[in-house]
């Protein structure tokens, strides 16, 4: 499936959690093509300036009924700060959808999506689409603290079963999203999908290995081009084989990443 490059109008910017913004873009053709787990590159962020130089990758967080593309932007530096400071009506360069996306084929049990921090971005889209296709999805979502949890009310009204955790216990169970996988009752055989901090992915991988469950992990990497040309985002899998996160990923079978 070919990626599109276009300029899209920003229709809304909403602070979804502390230092985290939900951007909605009028990019109906990209929204229509998008599969959960895919991403877009945004940039140049200041079209008349050569600084910041590179575009930025963002997981697709969702699409609305009227064709808006939803992205979750956590402010981590200058580029994301510029994006969060944009106003409705501003235009943004978008390239996408890019990457492979999650395998959505129906399985015997529920799909359990385990998201930590901004790792929620692709997983809510996944859980919603999976539910829409007639499957059962559970979203286990953890963040540092209650004010970092993104749009909890909206999550609950999405038709997806949601369980929450925070590191400091200010909302949901104390602990991480991976802890929820142990604590929450999940019907097995479940299929797992995870996105978040490396330590959380490792924990989820351990659980998957012990319980012999399928697990797809979505990886994050620095990247310059997003289309497989620069080899900047390469990760070395457990076997030593090099894979481009932007092209062969960002979604991988956990055994490829963490070994059997």
């Amino acid at each position, binding site marked *: 499936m070919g990626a599109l490059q276009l300029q899209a109008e920003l229709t809304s910017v909403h602070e979804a959690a502390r230092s985290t913004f939900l951007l909605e873009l009028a990019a109906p053709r990209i929204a229509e093509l998008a599969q959960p787990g895919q991403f877009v590159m945004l940039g140049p962020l200041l079209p008349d300036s050569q600084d910041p*130089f590179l*575009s930025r990758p963002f997981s697709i967080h969702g699409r609305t009924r009227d064709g808006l593309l939803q992205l979750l932007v956590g402010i981590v530096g200058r580029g994301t700060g510029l994006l969060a400071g944009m106003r409705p009506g501003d235009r943004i360069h978008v390239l996408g959808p890019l990457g492979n996306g999650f395998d959505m084929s129906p399985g015997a049990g529920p799909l359990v999506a385990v998201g930590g921090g901004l790792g929620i971005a692709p997983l809510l889209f996944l859980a919603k689409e999976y539910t829409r296709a007639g499957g059962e999805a559970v979203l286990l979502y953890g963040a540092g603290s209650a004010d970092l949890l993104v749009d909890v009310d909206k999550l609950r009204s999405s038709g997806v079963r949601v369980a929450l955790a925070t590191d400091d216990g200010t909302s949901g169970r104390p602990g991480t999203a991976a802890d929820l996988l142990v604590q929450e009752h999940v019907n097995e055989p479940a299929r797992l999908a995870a996105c978040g901090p490396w330590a959380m992915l490792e924990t989820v991988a351990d659980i998957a290995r012990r319980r012999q469950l399928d697990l797809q992990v979505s990886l994050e990497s*620095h990247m310059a081009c997003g*289309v*497989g*040309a*620069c080899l900047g985002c390469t990760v*070395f899998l457990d076997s030593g084989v090099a894979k481009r996160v932007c092209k062969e990923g960002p979604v991988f079978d956990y055994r490829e990443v963490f070994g059997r």
Partner: protein
Amino acid sequence: MSAADLSVAIGRLRLDNPVMVAAGTFGFGEEYAGLLDVDALGALVTKGISLQPRRGNPPPRTVETPAGMLNSVGLENPGLESFIENKMPWLRSLRTAVIVNIFGSTADEYAELAGRLDAVEGIAALEVNISCPNVKRGGMAFGADPDIARQVAKRVLDNTRLPVLVKLTPNVTDIAEVAKRVASSGVDGLTLINTLSGMALDYRTGKPLLGNVIGGLSGPAIRPVAVRAVYEVARAVDIPLVGCGGICRWQDAVEFMRAGATAVQVGSATFRVPRTALECLQGVDKFLTHGGYTSVSELVGHVESVTDKESRA
């Protein structure tokens, strides 16, 4: 107003137009095929190829810096055989000129690469990389020594009938000196510049931002260095130059031509806007036509002297 003739000659290499995409920034072309008309490029320079497959450097391999980026990819590539078998069939189907960038860790390896690619159909020229800052052996170490640089160029020329470009590193005291020595080998042209050696640290932790610690700086941040290099080398050698370094807009391409470049390569700017090279080509075309130029060569090396009056002001 008649249209300008955009074709250029770089020694024996003839191109329909002077705008190429630089090695390492365009993969093997297929990655960008859906995003721009690859055949409209003056030439496509492939990712650097070595005899054996190379794994490249550990991640992270890229980091953004002011008006540019550092990379330490380390010439990851599938190796010569896999390149010929898996990448050349698609490249051969292109109408645009395909220039294969080659890299070795010994002069013999360069010679062997040249010899084996000589027999491969569909290649317009070779570009010899003696300037990569991201590898321990060969690379920049060859390009920084004028005599070794010349020797490598000579070995490549002796083993192929293809036109040969040599890509120079700016990480030297006197790039014109290296250029003169390499030019004396009889190569068709010189590409300049490769990336500048650089690094970046996380100031809080002291941790290098690249897995390889040191990498190559590219992007508009290095453009003035590249323009100066082209200007100096143009005054030192008689062979055509290909300018490269931070070209983002057609105005930048024209600037390089004025400094002395017969053709240009768009590099990391493709990462941010895939169509950059073609936008540059359109702009150069318009500039030449509106300016009454009939060919690219009329612009090449056209630097006005700074008058006494201006320099006093």
